[in-house]
């Protein structure tokens, strides 16, 4: 179980900006959560704070009761936390099979990396020996990124916009893959997404906006609310709703 207690994240710059504001969240074993909400709401920052990329300015993060707030990324990874980046980094001189073997190296269960590629909709013959560099498209990089998280035996798996760049045909396969992790392991899956079909996988949906949790409930309740409401969840003032002839100011 992963618990965030009053987690705040402030970025210091010319203006100090609070990206996360006293977040309280509990993520239980074997459940799928989808975190959604308007762009800039703090979803990716939340994910990175869970992974340890960002250190919270205040508050605590507990994994199965253990305070992991001051642990670094490597330590949290070894404790069973994994994160699939929204924009995965490329490397020079590292092949797909090497990266997947690295990801699987701490997994006590033997991992078949060809199966992993199949689960993300890639043919192992075509991809194992490719370099994880600029020669791969965004969608290919995204799938390999997801595969590196699937390679691990995790307590908490966070996927940041996993659907971005995935074509329609592979989407079904991806949804099936998430459902399979859910059935096979006790992993808590946290998906950051804007996609209705990803949200259908969720046990609970969390809406984040403006650095705060604005709603959290079972999937059906939230989905009904989103579908019936055509107002956006963003709280910033804007000119939305102004008529067609309004002056475009920029």
């Amino acid at each position, binding site marked *: 179980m992963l618990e965030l207690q009053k987690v705040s994240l402030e970025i210091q710059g010319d203006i100090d900006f609070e990206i996360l504001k006293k977040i309280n969240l509990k993520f239980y074993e074997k459940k799928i959560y989808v975190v959604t909400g308007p762009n800039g709401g703090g979803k990716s920052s939340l994910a990175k704070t869970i992974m340890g*990329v960002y250190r919270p300015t205040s508050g605590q993060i507990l994994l199965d009761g253990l305070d992991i707030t001051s642990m*670094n*990324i*490597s330590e949290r990874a070894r404790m069973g936390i994994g994160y699939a980046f929204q924009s995965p980094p490329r490397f*020079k*001189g*590292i092949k797909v099979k090497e990266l997947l073997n*690295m990801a699987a190296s701490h997994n006590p269960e033997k991992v078949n990396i060809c199966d992993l590629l199949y689960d993300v909709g890639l043919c192992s013959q075509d991809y194992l020996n490719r370099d994880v560099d600029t020669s791969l498209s965004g969608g290919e990089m995204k799938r390999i990124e997801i595969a590196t998280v699937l390679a*691990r035996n995790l307590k908490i798996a966070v996927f940041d916009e996993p659907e971005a760049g995935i074509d329609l045909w592979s989407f079904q396969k991806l949804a099936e893959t998430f459902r399979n992790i859910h059935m096979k392991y006790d992993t808590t899956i946290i998906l950051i997404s804007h996609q209705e079909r990803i949200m259908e996988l969720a046990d609970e949906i969390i809406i984040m906006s403006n650095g705060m949790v604005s709603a959290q409930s079972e999937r059906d309740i939230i989905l009904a609310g989103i579908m019936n409401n055509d107002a956006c969840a963003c709280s910033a003032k804007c000119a939305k709703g102004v008529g067609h002839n309004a002056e475009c100011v920029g």
Partner: protein
Amino acid sequence: MLNALDKLMLEKVADLHEIPQGAFNIRKNGAGVQRNTTANIDIVTKTDKSGIDVIIKPYTKGESVHIPVIVTEENINDVVYNTFEVGEYSDVLIVAGCGIHNSGHHKSQHDGIHTFFVRKGAKLKYVEKHYGQGDGKGQRVLNPKTIIEVEEGAVVDLELIQIKGIDQTKRDTEIRLMDNAKLVVTERLLTYKNQEAESNIIVELLGVDSSAQIISRSVAQDDSKQVFYFDLIGRNKGRGHIQCDAIIMHNAQVLSTPRISAHHSEAQLVHEAAIGRIESEQLIKLMSLGFTEQEAEDTILSGFLK
């Protein structure tokens, strides 16, 4: 006779675990110590200066020549001139390599001047590896000069590798390409401590449809210094691409000048150069897989220099 140190050096410099198959010439501490020739490849000691002539008959296919140089004593100053005649339509591998083991106080230096004539339609892969070791204060210095004439339709693949070990190196490479000649140069360099390395690569595209690709990757650590100068000169219809990437760390310095000079309207030349620290996203990604920062860094650097 080769002793244990000699064998270790040969392994480091030329991946040789035993006496190589095919033609070879082993030079140790300024003198040739062992040689073998084959029906198609002859090796002849020069009479006017230090060095050898390697003569590969036309149409020789699938053979290799190993010409490692090892220096295992201090105070050696060895200059050699080697000339390679790669016959028409042959397809060969030449492995040169120089290893210096210096446990003394005095500098040991080897300067190899290699001139290649790659004849019409021939294919040459040339691998040159530099290695240094020894806990003495004596410097380990290597200054290779490589001059290659690539004739019509010939293909040359050059691999130049130096990872640590060598305190000072000034490497000069000059290549001239004729009609339909093709060149790929891959350079891998890592300097650390107070080492200094200078590499100058000048490639002239003289022939129609000649092409050249230069990929240089280096890592500069500690207080080391690297200076690169590349000049891709297009004198005819042809294509050339230089890509130099360097990872700079600690207090090191890297100066890179990739120059492209077009003297013909159909010369197409591209250069890309980038110097920077290791990308933090790469480190974060590998750390998120459970590796420590040091392990992540080592993995990124070894992949980069592969």
